[in-house]
């Protein structure tokens, strides 16, 4: 137990901050994913074939390629890409991107592909009559989407989004390969310095279980809230 003590003697505080880092990366990645979903869901639902193609390309490639490979692409290619853009503007110094930004972008793009599929499914399962009724009542496009489609869509999307959240949370463990100090990386460091990998990796597993358990409880509450009237 003294291994988990807070302060200089134990790893308790380090692991606590690492847990906060995992939460921060997951939340950022989830939000980045929503932005991607916001861009690609309309593309997938568009009537134009070429736009569909772009949307399908994104979701198929990201969901068919291992997360680790995407992370390596960002880790090794991220600063190169930024430096290339900077060189166009006449800046030739070395630029290093923060591991947090690389990690949450990489996981965000992955989570965005799953979110896109969830939103597409949710919008498609809303009854066509709802769209037509909104149109007939003379509600403008903005009102149609935000007041009628979105609330119904959220109710259908939340159970699946909670799956996406779980996937995202677990995927953040892969960012440890880039050196960002989250739960997995901190356990790796602690295991290396104390030569007690069994304890620290098991403890990491407990931390992840705790995170998934608590987030499930919170999401269930949201689910109840959005299913009012059903």
């Amino acid at each position, binding site marked *: 137990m003294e291994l988990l003590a807070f302060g200089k003697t134990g790893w308790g505080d380090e692991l606590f901050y690492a847990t906060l880092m995992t939460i921060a990366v997951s939340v950022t990645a989830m939000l980045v994913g929503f932005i991607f979903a916001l861009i690609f869901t309309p593309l997938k639902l568009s009537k134009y074939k070429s736009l569909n193609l772009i949307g399908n390309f994104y979701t*198929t*490639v990201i*969901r*068919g*390629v*291992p*997360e*680790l*490979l995407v992370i*390596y*692409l960002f880790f*090794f*290619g991220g600063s*190169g890409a930024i430096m290339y853009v900077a060189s166009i503007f006449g800046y030739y110094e070395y630029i290093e991107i923060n591991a947090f930004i690389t990690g949450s972008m990489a996981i965000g793009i992955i989570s965005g592909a799953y979110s896109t599929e969830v939103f597409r499914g949710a919008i498609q399962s809303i009854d066509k009559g709802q769209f037509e009724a909104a149109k007939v009542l003379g509600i403008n496009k903005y009102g149609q989407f935000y007041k009628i489609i979105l609330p119904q869509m959220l109710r259908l999307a939340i159970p699946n989004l909670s799956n996406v959240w*779980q996937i995202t949370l*677990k*995927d953040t*463990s*892969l960012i*440890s*390969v880039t050196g960002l100090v989250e739960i*997995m990386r901190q*356990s*790796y460091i602690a*295991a290396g310095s104390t*030569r*007690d*990998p*069994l304890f620290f*990796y*098991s403890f*990491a*597993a407990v931390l*992840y*279980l705790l995170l*998934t*358990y608590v987030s499930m409880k919170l999401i269930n509450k949201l689910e109840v809230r959005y299913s009012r009237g059903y």
Partner: protein
Amino acid sequence: MDFDLMITSFPKLLGATVITLKLLSASLFFGLFLGLFFAILRLNNNIFINKFAYGYSYIFRGTPLLVQIFIIYFGLGQIEYLRTTFLWIILKEPYWCAIIAFTLNTGAYTSEILRSAFQTIKPGIIEAGKSLGISNKIIFYKIQIPIAIRQSLPAYGNEIILMMKGTSLASTVTLMDLTGVAKYIISTTFKPIEVFIVAGGIYLFMTFIIHNVIKYLEKKYSFQ
């Protein structure tokens, strides 16, 4: 774009794909049996057996695969007793550790898929079997299992694809699978995009094949 690199790295990556496929097929094979076993435990009325099976699937679905591999590869070697038993022959090899971790992981997901498939079988079908005088054992093996397998095909297809992506984590325990070799080439040439296109293309091709095989099986064994 460095097309020469893409062409020269292709055979190397293709060679590494063999290891990926070996890991995938071994863990799916063992995982299916493990999943079936735990799905049957989940359907048991005994609350302890039931809770045990639920706990197994909850722990393995609630933690990242990376943690599971690290516990098995780095963690189990720490137990002195294990080093003296014959198990050590298996556990000292990263290859077998990866397969054990993948099997336990996919077993947890498979057990959930099969459990829900068993539960969606209409009671009428089992009752019909009973009224025809078929024994419970035969009903289970000849009626329930085939229906459950058909029922779970779409979800299991997804699980196969997820597991294929999961095998990439074998590269973290020094195995040179497709992702491992891709990372090696990237870190020696610093050309991530070219290597990503080739390695990602191979993964996508495998996803495509798995997807279509499952689709074919679904069609072949559909009820209509």
